[in-house]
């Protein structure tokens, strides 16, 4: 333990309104504390810059998974375990369930939350690429009111985000698709043209590993060509990225010939900005991202 524990505060607000009032009264002074799986690691490393935390873990307004005809909406405090246990998510948003299952380990999954993961804003986070593929929107709340932000616009730079100091991430909303069916394993390819989904996290282990590259994709095929597609990656840029140029190319191109796949891989390489770091190299990340794209396109 490299921090002086007595100087840290963790106060339990009476309710959500009380939390927002405190954050509004002293913006940036009180920071939310959910499951603690990121913040406690920083505390133990002596790297936790903030000292005053609001214990939002039990705020019931931020829990729960609700489904309407058009959306599935998750409270920001939904844990990875809760994600995996949801039948609706397993059926219609399987990439999110895959990401949750590959995050940390059982013990992390019981405590880590989607809202915390988003707010921690690591470019290597596992669930965000799936959220990008699913066109997620975030509801941000404060004492001033509430607003919705497309998740694709939320991260503006490395650890920078469209979240004011007095705001909390409250909900994550996913639009439902009529053609959503769960086909996530590489090689599992039904004959019908459905919304085929793919998730692959490449790391040193199958658990407790931060990814070297993480790829989430979904495509709707029509007679051998791509009618619609979503591609998102983690660990290859300062934020998680939606590869819109690659998507545009794939929508515009005709049949997926080897030449078309190769062209798509070139465009992908231009949309990402991998670096050499502690975990991997730019060259490896670029090559593997391209390989994962090819594997995804085989579905």
């Amino acid at each position, binding site marked *: 333990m490299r921090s002086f*524990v007595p100087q840290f505060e963790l*106060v*339990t607000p009476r309710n959500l309104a009380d939390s927002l009032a405190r954050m509004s009264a002293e913006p940036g002074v009180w920071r939310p504390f959910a499951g603690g799986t990121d913040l406690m690691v920083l505390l133990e490393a002596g790297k936790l810059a903030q000292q005053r935390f609001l*214990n939002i873990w039990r705020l019931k307004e931020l829990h729960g998974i609700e489904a309407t005809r058009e959306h599935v909406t998750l409270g920001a405090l939904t844990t990875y375990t809760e994600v995996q246990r949801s039948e609706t998510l397993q059926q219609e948003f399987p990439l999110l369930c895959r990401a949750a299952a590959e995050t940390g*380990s059982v013990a*992390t999954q*019981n*405590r880590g939350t989607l809202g915390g993961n988003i707010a921690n804003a690591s470019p290597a986070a596992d669930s965000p690429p799936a959220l990008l593929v699913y066109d997620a929107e975030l509801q941000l709340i404060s004492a001033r009111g509430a607003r919705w932000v497309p998740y694709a616009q939320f991260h503006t730079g490395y650890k920078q985000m469209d979240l004011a100091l007095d705001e909390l991430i409250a909900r994550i909303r996913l639009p439902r698709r009529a053609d959503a069916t769960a086909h996530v394993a590489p090689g599992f390819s039904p004959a019908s043209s459905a919304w085929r989904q793919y998730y692959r996290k490449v790391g040193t282990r199958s*658990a407790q590993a931060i990814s070297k590259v993480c790829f989430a994709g979904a495509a709707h095929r029509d007679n051998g060509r791509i009618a619609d597609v979503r591609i998102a990656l983690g660990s290859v840029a300062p934020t998680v990225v939606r590869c819109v140029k690659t998507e545009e190319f794939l929508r515009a191109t005709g049949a997926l010939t080897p030449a078309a796949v190769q062209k798509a891989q070139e465009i992908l390489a231009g949309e990402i900005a991998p670096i050499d770091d502690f975990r991997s190299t730019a060259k490896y990340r670029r090559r593997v991202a391209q390989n994962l794209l090819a594997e995804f396109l085989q579905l």
Partner: protein
Amino acid sequence: MNMAEKPDKVRIAMRVNGREHVVHAWPMARLLDVLREALRLTGTKEGCGEGECGACAVLLDGALVNSCLVPAVHAEGASITTIEGVARGDELSAVQQAFLEHGGAQCGICTPGMVLAAVNLLEKCPNPTDADIRAGLAGNLCRCTGYMKIFESVLAACKTQKEL
């Protein structure tokens, strides 16, 4: 920050291994330290202090958690099971007995966390496949056994539990 403004310790009431306890702890003290130092339950170990190794695993309201990542405040009102609470008096649980019989422990430092992870796995999944066992224990690192005897112990424990 002047001395008068410093945060105080907080009162935390929790149930540990079936017994009620009240401790006074710093709000961000690790549950791991509260268990070991305030309650003198030293069976729970610190391996990494960053939630990667599982040596500190306990059950918190039935969920497996890394106690090095749980702040004391989150233990308020909770029901916690540590390794000391797995046996019933002198009667070892099926998992513990299996570890003894199948060589699931060598130095023993990972063992409390492994046993809790295994107990939790079998509660949720009484007939785990090999893949289920590996996934359920993926958050627990062992430097001695090479894992095979641990997995064999868990499989043996399933069989014993089925016979009961």
